[in-house]
C-alpha cells in the first residue's frame, strides 16, 4: 500500500508539472494574472507530492519491505538504520527520486520567495522549471520506477553495496545534487529571459544568489566526495580524473565562471549574452553529468547499472533541453541589448579573462571525458584517458588563471591601471618569491616544480589578503581605524578573500601531498615495525570481530614518533557475506594538517598481513581549501548588496533572508 501511494504521488506530481508547463505561459501571453499565479501553487504542490513520494520510499527502506524490488536489491534487515535511510539514494531509482525532489524543492523556493520578481518572469521561470521536472518524472515512471513490486517477496534483501555503507553516502550525493540541480534555476531564468526577449541588471541580481547557493553545495559536495574516496577506497587517492568525477567538475568550472560573469552583468550591465549562454551551458553540463552517471555508458569506479532504455531516454532529455535552449539562444540572443563598455584592462576585463580560462579548462575536461566514448563509437578502439592527459592540459591552463587571480579585485571597473595594481601587490609578490626561495634552499636538489607551485599558492593567498589590507588601509593608518573599516567592509569583499585564499590553500595541499607523500607497502608479521616519515608503526596483533552485517579483521598498530608513543591505529578489513564482498577501512591519524594513513590488504598464509602505510603531509589542506571557498560563498550570500535595490526593498530583504 505504501509503495502504491508513493507511485501515485509521483504520477500526480507529473500531472502538476504538465499543467505548470503550459498554463503560466498562456497566462503570460494573455496577461492573465490568475493563470500566471497558478504556477506558484502547482510548484508548491509538486514539492508536497514528490516529498511524499520520497518519504514513502524511505519508509519502505526503513521497514525493510522486501516485496519492493528496490528495497530487496539494496537493503538488508540487519543493516544499521542510518544506512537503511541513506540506501534510499544509494541506487539508481532512489537517487533519481532524490534528484527530482531537489528540483521540486528549488522550484517551490522560487514560487514561495519570488515575491519581488515581475509576474511574467516568474511565470516563465516556473514553467521552464516544470519542463525539466516533467521530463525527469516521466523518466522515473517509465524506466526507473522505485516502487515496483516483486510477485514472490523474498525473506531477506541483497544488502547495499558495502562500499556505500558509509556516512559519506549520507552527505555526498544530497550535497552534489543540491549543486547540480540548483543550477536549474539559473537555466530557467536564462530561458525565461530569452522567451521574454528582455534582460536587465535586476535579472542578474536575482540569478546570482541562486547560482551562489548551487555553487556552494557543489563545491562542498565535490570536496566531500573526494575525501570519501580518499578514506574508503584504501589507497589514499583523492582525485582520479574518473569520468564521473569529471562530470561534477565540469558544471563546477562553468558555474564558477557564471558566478563571475553574473557579477559583471549585475554591476556593469555588460556581458549579458555571455551570461545567458553560461547559465544554459552550466545546467547542460549538470544534465550531461546525470547522463554519464545514470546511463552506464562509462567504465569507471562508479560502475552503475547498465540499461540501454535508460541511457536513450536521458540522452533524449539531454538533446531536447540542450538543443532546444541553444536554438532559442541563437534565435533570441541578438535581440538582447548590449550595454556597459569597458577597456580590456579593467575589472570587467579581468573577469572576462577568468571566464575564458575557466571555460577553456572546462572544455579540456570535456574533451578528455568524452573523447574515449566518441572514439569507441566511431572506430570501436578502446582507450583510457587518465591523469597524465589532464595534468598536461588542465594544469597549464590553471597556472595563468591563478597568476591573474590577485589582479582582478585590484583593478577598477571600466578602466583599470595595471601598474598601480602591480604596485599594490608588491608585498604579495615578495611573499611568493620568499616562499619559493626558502623551499628551494630547504629542499636543495629536490623537485623544482613543487616550490614554484607553492609560491604560486602563496601569491594567491597573499593577493587575497592584500585586497582586504588595501581596503582597510592596514599599516598606513592606525590599527583601530583599520579594524573599524574592516567591520564596515561589505561581506562580499570578505567572501572574495576567503574564496580566493581557499584556492591557494587547496593548491598547497595538492602539491605537498603529491610531492612529499611517503609510503610503505609490505607484508607485516605481528610485532614487526614499519618506519614511515619518522613514525614507527608496530603491528601488535590481529583480531576478529562480528559487526551487524559483516565480519571484520582488525589490525592493532602502536604508533610512536622518536621513541615517544603517540597513539594506536586500527585499520580493518570487513567482509560482507550477503554480497561476498570486502571493504577496506583505513585508519587515519591526523597531526595538524598531515595524516598518517594505514590500510590492510590480504592476510598471508603464514599469519602476516599486507599493509599500506602512507604519510601524507598537509593533505587536509586539499579539503580545507574548498571549505574556505564555500565559506566565502556563504559570506557573499549574506551581503546586503545582493538584497538592496529590489523593487520592494523591505519585503525583499525579509523574503530573501528566509530563502537563503
Amino acid at each position, binding site marked *: 500500500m505504501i509503495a502504491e501511494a508513493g507511485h501515485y504521488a509521483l504520477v500526480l506530481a507529473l500531472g502538476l508539472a504538465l499543467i505548470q508547463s503550459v498554463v503560466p505561459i498562456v497566462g503570460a501571453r494573455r496577461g492573465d494574472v490568475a493563470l500566471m499565479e497558478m504556477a506558484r501553487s502547482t510548484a508548491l504542490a509538486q514539492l508536497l507530492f514528490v516529498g511524499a513520494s520520497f518519504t514513502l520510499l524511505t519508509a519502505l527502506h526503513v521497514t525493510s519491505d522486501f516485496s519492493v524490488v528496490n528495497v530487496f536489491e539494496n537493503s538488508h534487515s540487519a543493516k544499521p538504520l542510518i544506512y537503511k535511510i541513506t540506501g534510499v539514494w544509494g541506487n539508481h531509482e532512489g537517487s533519481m527520486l532524490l534528484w527530482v525532489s531537489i528540483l521540486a524543492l528549488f522550484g517551490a523556493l522560487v514560487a514561495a520567495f519570488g515575491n519581488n520578481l515581475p509576474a511574467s518572469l516568474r511565470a516563465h521561470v516556473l514553467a521552464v522549471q516544470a519542463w525539466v521536472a516533467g521530463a525527469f518524472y516521466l523518466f522515473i515512471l517509465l524506466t526507473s520506477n522505485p516502487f515496483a513490486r516483486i510477485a514472490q517477496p523474498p525473506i531477506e534483501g541483497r544488502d547495499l553495496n558495502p562500499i556505500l555503507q558509509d556516512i*559519506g553516502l549520507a552527505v555526498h550525493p544530497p550535497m552534489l545534487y543540491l549543486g547540480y540541480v540548483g543550477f536549474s534555476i539559473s537555466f530557467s531564468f536564462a530561458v525565461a529571459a530569452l522567451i521574454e526577449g528582455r534582460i536587465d541588471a535586476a535579472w542578474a541580481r536575482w540569478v546570482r544568489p541562486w547560482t551562489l547557493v548551487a555553487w556552494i553545495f557543489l563545491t562542498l559536495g565535490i570536496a566531500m566526495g573526494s575525501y570519501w574516496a580518499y578514506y574508503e577506497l584504501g589507497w589514499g587517492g583523492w582525485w582520479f580524473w574518473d569520468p564521473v568525477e569529471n562530470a561534477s567538475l565540469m558544471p563546477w568550472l562553468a558555474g564558477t565562471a557564471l558566478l563571475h560573469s553574473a557579477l559583471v552583468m549585475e554591476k556593469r550591465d555588460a556581458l549579458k549574452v555571455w551570461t545567458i549562454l553560461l547559465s544554459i551551458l552550466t545546467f547542460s553540463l549538470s544534465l550531461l553529468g546525470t547522463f554519464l552517471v545514470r546511463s552506464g555508458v562509462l567504465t569507471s569506479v562508479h560502475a552503475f547499472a547498465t540499461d540501454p532504455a535508460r541511457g536513450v531516454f536521458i540522452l533524449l532529455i539531454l538533446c531536447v533541453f540542450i538543443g532546444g535552449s541553444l536554438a532559442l539562444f541563437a534565435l533570441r540572443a541578438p535581440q538582447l541589448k548590449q550595454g556597459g563598455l569597458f577597456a580590456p584592462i579593467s575589472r570587467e576585463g579581468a573577469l572576462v579573462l577568468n571566464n575564458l580560462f575557466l571555460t577553456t579548462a572546462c572544455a579540456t575536461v570535456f574533451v578528455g571525458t568524452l573523447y574515449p566514448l566518441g572514439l569507441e563509437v566511431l572506430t570501436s578502439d578502446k*582507450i583510457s584517458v587518465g591523469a597524465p592527459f589532464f595534468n598536461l592540459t588542465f594544469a597549464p591552463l590553471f597556472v595563468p588563471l591563478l597568476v591573474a587571480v590577485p589582479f582582478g579585485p585590484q583593478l577598477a571597473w571600466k578602466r583599470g591601471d595595471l601598474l598601480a595594481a602591480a604596485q599594490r601587490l608588491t608585498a604579495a609578490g615578495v611573499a611568493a618569491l620568499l616562499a619559493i626561495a626558502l623551499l628551494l634552499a630547504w629542499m636543495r636538489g629536490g623537485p623544482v616544480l613543487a616550490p614554484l607551485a607553492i609560491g604560486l599558492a602563496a601569491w594567491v593567498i597573499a593577493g587575497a589578503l592584500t585586497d582586504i589590507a588595501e581596503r582597510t588601509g592596514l599599516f598606513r593608518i592606525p590599527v583601530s581605524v583599520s579594524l573599524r573599516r574592516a567591520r564596515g567592509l561589505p561581506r562580499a569583499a570578505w567572501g572574495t578573500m576567503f574564496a580566493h585564499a581557499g584556492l591557494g590553500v587547496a593548491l598547497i595541499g595538492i602539491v605537498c601531498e603529491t610531492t612529499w607523500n611517503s609510503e610503505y*607497502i609490505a607484508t607485516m608479521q605481528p610485532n614487526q615495525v614499519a618506519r614511515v616519515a619518522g613514525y614507527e608503526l608496530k603491528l601488535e596483533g590481529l583480531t576478529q570481530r562480528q559487526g551487524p552485517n559483516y565480519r571484520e579483521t582488525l589490525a592493532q598498530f602502536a604508533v610512536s614518533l622518536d621513541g615517544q608513543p603517540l597513539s594506536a591505529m586500527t585499520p580493518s578489513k570487513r567482509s560482507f557475506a550477503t554480497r561476498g564482498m570486502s571493504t577496506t577501512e583505513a585508519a587515519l591519524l591526523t597531526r595538524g594538517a598531515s595524516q598518517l594513513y594505514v590500510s590492510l590488504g590480504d592476510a598471508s598464509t603464514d599469519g602476516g598481513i599486507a599493509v599500506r602505510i602512507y604519510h601524507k603531509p598537509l593533505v587536509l589542506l586539499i579539503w580545507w581549501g574548498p571549505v574556505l571557498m564555500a565559506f566565502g560563498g556563504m559570506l557573499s550570500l549574506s551581503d546586503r548588496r545582493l538584497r538592496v535595490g529590489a523593487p520592494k526593498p523591505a519585503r525583499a530583504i525579509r523574503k530573501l533572508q528566509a530563502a537563503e
Partner: protein
Amino acid sequence: MTRKQRRLTMIGGSLAVLAVAAALVLNAMRDSIVFFSTPSMAAEKQIPAGKRFRLGGLVQPGSLVRGENLVVNFSVADGGTTLPVSYKGILPDLFREGQGVVAEGALDASGTFRADTVLAKHDETYMPKEVADALKKQGHWKDDYGAKPAQGAAK
C-alpha cells in the same frame, strides 16, 4: 581605443587561449592515451615491449601465485590466448580467480605483462564493460556473467 579595437583585442585574446588549449590537448592526446587490449588482441597486434596498454580479461583459475614481498603472478585469459602478468603490490578487494580484471602496464622482453596498476572495478557478478564486450565479440560470453546488473558505487 575604439569599440572595434576593444572587441578585436578580446576576440584575439580568446582565440589565442583556445589555440593554446587545443595545442595542449593534441599534444597530450599523442603521449598520454592508453589503448585497451585483450590477450588475443595483444598477440594479434604484436604490441612491442615497453608500450603501455590496458590488458583486460579473466583471471585464469589456478594461475595465481603469491611470491615474496607482495609479488603476485597470474594469467589473464580471454578464451583464446593467455598472457602471464606480474604485479607487485596489494591486489584490490574484488580481485578473484575466474573474474574480470583490467591491468595497466607494458610487456617486458620475455613477454610477461608487467602491471603497475590492477583494477577490479566490479562486484561479484559484474565485470568491466571492456572485458565483457571483448568476450562477447569472441563468442566466449556466458549469459550468467551478466545475470545481475552491478549495483553502483557512487564513490
